[in-house]
Each structure stands twice: as structure tokens, then as C-alpha cells.
């Protein structure tokens, strides 16, 4: 019987190696699996690359991870200069790679979909394109972008079953389904547990084939 539920935080985050690339779902405070990040902090992995929509605000789980010196590199679409990430970067204690938000999502989607590269006009006419390969397609300058895969994705679900099928609540969907596709090991925390078959097949957003472990973390 397939049963992807794990029954402790330690089991949920077991085996995450030093040097891993972690895809971290969420946008603002919504859909971000903060308990899993705290679990990762307790688990001890370090020298991490974190991929997230932004560099984290004061009091966020990302900030806690950064403050412990566990992050080598941050890949995201913006960093507030006054945030811890912004300050660490300016002190040379953190590598930061800034990617337009749509390109960030699309690069992870490409990783999940077996697309080995793609062209986009986003950023092609900007200083983000400096020194990079461009190509004119249909009269428009485009940048060549490569997939952005993760070793681990940490995602927040609203409901999940033992096959790892997942639904999300409202705008908590955001990057979570994309990251679930793009990582070797996808760890979901879910607010609710569904019996197998309880989630209507047409309404499942992330099929369980993209999810490796599920931990129930009630609201």
C-alpha cells in the first residue's frame, strides 16, 4: 500500500543533505510551509541554496535560517535592502541571484517538465541580460534561460491523501505546485488529511506522483 504520510517532523525532513538546493513554496505569509522550515533548521542541514519568491521579511522562517548562517546562496525575485538577506548580501556573507518572478517560476516549471532551455523576452533588454546569450525571435530580443531544479521542495497543502495528492486553499497555491514538480524530493505539510478517493479526481491540483512525503500539521 502506498502511504506517503510520515508521522514526525524528523521523518519529514530526514536525509536533507548539506549543500542541497531547497525550493521553498509560499508568497508573502501565504502558502509558506514555515513548520517544515523550522524542521529543517532543527535537522541541521547547512550550506543550502534557497529558492523562494523573495528574500524573507523580519520574523520569517527564511530569516531564521539565514541568521543561523545555514544559507550559502539565495535565488529569488527580490530582496529588500533592509532585510537580513539584503544586509548579509551587502556584507558579502550571502550570494544572491535575482531573477524576474515569471522567469523564476518558468525555470522551475521547465525543470519539472523536461524542458532543457527556453527563450523569453523578459529581461532581455535590461542589465540582467549583460554577458548572457540572447537571440532575436520574431523581431523580439529574447534571453536563453535554463531549468532550475531543486534537490528538495518544501510545500504547504490544504488537504492531502496517502498517495500524496494535494489541494491548496485560495492563493496559498502560488509556487507550491510548480516546486513540487521541480524537486527530486518533495515534502508536503498538509493542514487536512483526506481519505484516498475523498479528493475529487478533477480537483486534485498536484497529483501525488510529484509528492514524496506528507506530514499532517493541523492549523
Amino acid at each position, binding site marked *: 500500500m502506498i502511504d506517503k504520510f510520515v508521522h514526525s517532523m524528523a521523518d519529514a525532513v530526514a536525509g536533507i543533505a548539506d549543500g542541497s538546493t531547497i525550493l521553498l513554496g509560499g*508568497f508573502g505569509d*501565504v502558502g509558506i510551509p514555515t513548520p517544515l522550515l523550522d524542521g529543517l533548521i532543527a535537522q541541521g542541514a547547512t550550506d543550502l541554496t534557497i529558492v523562494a519568491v523573495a528574500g524573507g521579511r523580519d520574523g520569517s522562517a527564511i530569516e531564521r535560517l539565514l541568521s543561523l548562517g545555514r544559507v550559502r546562496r539565495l535565488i529569488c525575485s527580490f530582496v529588500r535592502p533592509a532585510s537580513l538577506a539584503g544586509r548579509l548580501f551587502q556584507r558579502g556573507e550571502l550570494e544572491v541571484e535575482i531573477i*524576474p*518572478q*515569471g522567469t523564476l*517560476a518558468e525555470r522551475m516549471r521547465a525543470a519539472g517538465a523536461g524542458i532543457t532551455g527556453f527563450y523569453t523576452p523578459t529581461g532581455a533588454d535590461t542589465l540582467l541580460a549583460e554577458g548572457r546569450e540572447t537571440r532575436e525571435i520574431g523581431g523580439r530580443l529574447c534571453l536563453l534561460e535554463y531549468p532550475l531544479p531543486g534537490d528538495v521542495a518544501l510545500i504547504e497543502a490544504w488537504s492531502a491523501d496517502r498517495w500524496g495528492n494535494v489541494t491548496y486553499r*485560495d*492563493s496559498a497555491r*502560488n509556487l507550491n505546485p510548480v516546486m513540487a514538480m521541480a524537486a527530486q524530493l518533495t515534502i508536503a505539510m498538509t493542514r487536512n488529511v483526506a481519505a484516498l478517493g475523498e479528493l475529487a479526481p478533477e480537483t486534485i491540483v498536484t497529483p501525488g506522483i510529484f509528492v514524496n512525503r506528507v506530514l499532517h500539521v493541523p492549523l
Partner: protein
Amino acid sequence: MDISPLDRNGMAAWCARDIPEGWLVNLGIGIPTLVADFVPADREVIFHAENGVIGVGPAPAADAVNPFLINASTTHVTLRTGGSYVHHADSFAIARGGHLDLCVLGAFEVAENGDIANWARSADEPVKQVGGAMDLAIGARRLWVVMEHTTKDGEPRIRHRCSYPLTAKAVVRRVYTSLAVLDLEPRGFVVRAMIPGMTLEALQARTEAKLHTA
């Protein structure tokens, strides 16, 4: 006659009047976000937020906040009846794939060649804040900008060429400022409307780019 430059709400309202029913519209952070407040509730305009919300509605009552529902400014919002959710890659497929009838952004500068600069004041800024602006700017069918006509120091923002790092080239179609509405045409900026009391001469004096009349 004295002139009274429009305030943020005034600019937002001016822009809102020109958005017809049925359009799919993304509003950038800052003044553009205010535009939604000036679209009458019975005019069905569908607002898109980058975090995957289609059909963003007004702010909720204080006692009816849905903690799972925010817009791209991370402000709590409601979902309009008929709204739906998509994931981030699909949301940016909407933005980048030409499905937005309109995107309204703020900017530091707009140039007469349609260039927009709205994400960095200098190429040397150590910490970058790109967000989704570049995706929106290249992808929307129409890009309108809402911004003060000049900087606080009176420096022009309507430029011959942008001096700040570009967000995208040759994409702006219209600019709503505190003083005027300008369309971008192949010949450059064309004045569509001015606030009461403003003259073409006075407007040109506050503008680096050459202004044309229709």
C-alpha cells in the same frame, strides 16, 4: 488660474475611467493598486494578481479576513464572484503570454521611445528588487504607467531617453501623470488630456521629451 496637480487617488481615478468592462488587468504596486478602488463595482473588470488570483476583489471587512487570500502586494483581499486561482507558472503565463488586456505600473521614468524604468535607480544598486515587473512589462497587450509628472525635486520623469536601468524597451502605450494623460505613438508623446488650468507650454516646461498634440 491656479493648477492643482492630481494626488495619488486623482491619478488612479483618471486611469480607472478608461478601463472598460471585461478587461483583464494587472495593477502594479503603489498608485496602480489604487486604480481598482475607482472602478465601479457594477463594471466587471477582472483584476489579476501575480500570485495566481484571477478576479481580485476589494479589501475584506476587518472581521472577515481570509488569511489564505492576498494580492501581489501581500495585502489581504477578497475574491470576486467568478474568480479563480492558478499556480505561479500559469499566472505568469497569463502575464507573459499576452493575455492581460492591460497592465498598469508605476515608474521612475518613461521615455518617448516607450522605454520604462521602474525597478532600480542605478545599475550599481547592490540589492535588486525585480519582482514581476519585467514579466508584466513585456507581456501585457497594453502597458499604461501612472506616476507623478516630475520628481519631488522637479526633475522630469517624461524623458527623451530613460536614465535609470530599463525594465523593458518600447512597451509603454499611455502615461497618466499628476498633470496630464500622454499617449505613446511612433512620433513620441501625444497629449490627450491635461488637468484644468494646465497649458501645453507649462506642461512642456515640466517635461524633457517633446510633446505632440493630437
